[in-house]
């Protein structure tokens, strides 16, 4: 007597995700999308949980890879489009921090007004740039951030806010938008971007955790982007912008002071370690992006 094989439980989440992913594969005609779905279903028919999820994840990876391939076929395009994405993310972070500050602080009315104006302009500037108008986005963000920087002048946050805005705007000016637009809901996405920035800021402001945005933007998010760069080099270029900013802003002049033994408020070793970590981060992001661009040219 032989044991009957254990029936494989259906997994509606994987099935639905597979259907959704296949129907949203960029630049693939519906017949080919159907073929990919049928093949994947055949492959996962006799597989269980994790193996099934890995196969579905390979379709998600294909989706990212195709999007990158269609939008940025040439190495230079991958770097430029990634720079724009990095600029948009960086300005988004500036907007979150500024909104959170304006919503949560007990500052003077003029300071708060400048912060609200800056946050509104920067978040709208990021959305405008994402829609393929980087110059207008950069102008809008710059116009909004200047009064805020004037209010902050001389304060502790001035250099961080200034450098983030400067790097973000510069990335928008140097970068170029993707020539391909999403088929669905671009306006809805941009509206959601602005509302999302405001929402994140409101939560962080109410929790008195403004610094979390900076940690996510300079730690978690770039690491995730570097991981995704294997599939689409543009993500790696965006990480270069984020870690590049952090490298610049980590400690203005700190390395020089540490080397000269002039620091009296911080351990020189801590400063040098921080500087070194940031430098390694930038180097890794550049190396991964460069390698991903080269790999994308191979068959």
């Amino acid at each position, binding site marked *: 007597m032989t044991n009957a094989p254990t029936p494989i439980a259906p997994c509606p989440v994987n099935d639905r995700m597979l259907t959704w992913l296949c129907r949203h594969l960029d630049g*693939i005609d519906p017949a080919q999308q159907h073929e990919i779905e049928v093949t994947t279903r055949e492959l996962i028919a006799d597989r269980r949980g994790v193996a099934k999820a890995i196969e579905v994840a390979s*379709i998600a*990876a294909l989706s990212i890879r195709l999007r990158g*391939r269609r939008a940025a076929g040439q190495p230079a395009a991958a770097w430029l489009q990634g720079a724009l994405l990095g600029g948009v993310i960086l300005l988004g972070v500036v907007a979150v921090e500024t909104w959170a500050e304006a919503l949560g602080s007990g500052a003077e009315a003029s300071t708060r007004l400048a912060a609200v104006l800056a946050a509104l302009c920067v978040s709208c500037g990021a959305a405008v740039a994402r829609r393929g108008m980087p110059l207008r986005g950069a102008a809008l963000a710059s116009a909004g951030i200047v009064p805020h920087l004037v209010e902050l002048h001389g304060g502790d946050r001035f250099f961080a806010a200034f450098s983030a805005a400067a790097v973000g705007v510069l990335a928008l000016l140097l970068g170029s938008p993707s020539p391909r637009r999403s088929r669905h809901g671009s306006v809805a996405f941009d509206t959601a971007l602005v509302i999302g920035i405001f929402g994140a800021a409101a939560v962080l402001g109410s929790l008195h955790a403004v610094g979390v945005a900076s940690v996510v933007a300079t730690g978690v998010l770039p690491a995730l982007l570097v991981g995704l760069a294997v599939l689409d080099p543009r993500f790696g270029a965006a990480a270069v912008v984020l870690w590049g900013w952090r490298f610049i802003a980590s400690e203005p002049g700190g390395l020089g002071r540490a080397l000269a033994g002039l620091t009296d408020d911080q351990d020189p070793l801590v400063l040098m370690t921080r500087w070194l970590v940031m430098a390694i981060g930038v180097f890794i992001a550049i190396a991964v992006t460069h390698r991903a661009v080269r790999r994308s040219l191979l068959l």
Partner: protein
Amino acid sequence: MADHVPLREPTYLILTALASGPAHGYGIIKSVDEMSEGRVRLRAGTLYGAIDRLEQDGYVAFVGESSEGGPPRRYYRLTSAGTSLLRDEAARLAANADLAWSRLGVARP
């Protein structure tokens, strides 16, 4: 064409699977699995990413759809450029293998 040699292993095996005649996606995956004796298991995402690129570059072409009792399947075949590419890569790999055997001083197994 020389720009695309050397090929990545999955691409090489996909082209090899198509060398004996047209096949659909699932057939290619099974064929690669058999040829490599289970060593290379292509994921659907890897296969169709490679086919998309090979089709764009003119090495593989869509032949047509055919149904054998199940849902209609799309068949792919090697183009003449694809055949040349595979031949070039096979020659390169064979030359490298011959070099190693001669340096080892043993006959090719």
